[in-house]
């Protein structure tokens, strides 16, 4: 489904990504972790072309993201993305947030869009809040709305860019629950996160990045039980200590 082939990227003279290759098969859940500044967020933003790459190739469902001729707008409509800071539209209520792209991009009628929005808002457990504005919701609720907004487009894959990093601790689980449900339903997912409990529970593979390189790309059990590189061992010992 997602093929990342030897991509490299620089911001000025700073090399953010170096020869990164990995893939996500249909229905697979891949977690990407690593210290801050390791390039994991940049990597995931390259997958739907939000960040351009200078070298290498990314294809999603057969479409070449890195080819300049590809219609990125069309491609992005098929890939969902969830951001660290939710990025709900603050001037629209929850329902409008979910309907905008459905109507403008997928050309659904108002009633189709509303029906879809209501179903998804119910699925993330926020039916009582559908007419509220994002500012009236907690962080966890906002992120669940953001997930529903992406799902409203019937995406073929979902990208999560640190979806719980900006949340208060007691709200992390409600968001992870929605993501676990999504994974068990068979959604293809690429998730940048530090939530190792989530990775253990639903990830098929875990990718560890450091200084712009993919250091390890392993099956989930092996990743935790048998880390090969000293860098990963060091990282795991630090984050799994408590």
């Amino acid at each position: 489904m997602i093929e990342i082939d030897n991509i490299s990227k620089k911001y000025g003279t700073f090399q953010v990504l170096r020869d990164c290759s990995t893939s996500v098969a249909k229905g697979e859940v891949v977690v990407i972790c690593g210290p801050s500044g390791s390039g994991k967020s940049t990597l995931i933003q390259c997958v739907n072309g939000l960040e351009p790459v200078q070298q290498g190739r990314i294809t999603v469902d057969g479409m070449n993201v890195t080819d300049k001729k590809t219609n990125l707008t069309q491609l992005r409509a098929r890939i969902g993305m969830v951001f660290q800071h939710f990025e709900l539209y603050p001037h629209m209520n929850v329902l409008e947030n979910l309907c905008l792209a459905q109507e403008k991009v997928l050309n659904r009628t108002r009633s189709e869009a509303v029906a879809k929005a209501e179903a998804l808002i119910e699925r993330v457990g926020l039916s009582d809040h559908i007419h509220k504005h994002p500012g009236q919701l907690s962080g966890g609720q906002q992120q669940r709305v953001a997930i529903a907004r992406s799902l409203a487009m019937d995406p073929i894959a979902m990208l999560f860019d640190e979806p719980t990093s900006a949340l208060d601790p007691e709200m992390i689980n409600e968001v992870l629950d929605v993501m676990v449900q999504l994974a068990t339903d068979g959604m293809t997912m690429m998730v940048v996160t530090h939530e190792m409990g989530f990775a253990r529970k639903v990830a098929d593979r875990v990718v560890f990045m450091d200084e712009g390189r993919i250091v390890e790309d392993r099956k989930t059990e092996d990743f935790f039980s048998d880390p090969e590189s000293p860098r990963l061992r060091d990282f795991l010992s630090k984050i799994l200590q408590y």
Partner: protein
Amino acid sequence: MSGFDFSVIVSALPFLWEGLQLSFLLTILAIIGGLGFGVLLALARMSGFRLLSLVAATYVNLIRSVPLILVIFWFYFLVPLVLGRPVGGFYSALIAFVMFEAAYYSEIMRAGIKSVAKGQVQAGKSTGLGYWRIQRHIVLPQAFRNMIPVLVTQAIILFQDTSLVFVVSLRDFMTASSIVARTEGRLVEMYLFAAVVYFVICFAGSLTVRRLQSKVAT
């Protein structure tokens, strides 16, 4: 207060009202035109096309560096040359105001647009919305909300600036007051009255700004 005769104002009211209507009309049309052209200038200046943003930046800096009265003159003499026929004082003044205000509005809007988080654009892009739809539905509504107080302030200045149209022989409120003042020989009364009228209108505008500011802040 002997020697003052305010009755002259009453008899001149219809004449003054005509002038005030012209002032309002120019202000409103210039705001609408200025906003429309200003949005385009702001988007052009912030666009990735170097040439486009350079042209927009040059225009804005040029217009903002000359006095409004000179711009009004320019267009009075320039527009007939371009169109090949005279368009009259009103239209040339209106075009001048639109072009002039657009330069200021575009800077206000550029600040407003920049105040909208970059992530909002990314969120729009990630759902497959194109550039114009992102601007129209996501960025501009938020930007406008942030910049309404500054825009109203600029509109108040514009209203006062319409008094400059006397240079192209248009009769706005200020010009009408001057005419009455001179023909009736009642300079003090008329200029006092004109000041009161400007004050009432502009102060009401300022109060609106203050109310809007507290509304935007919440």
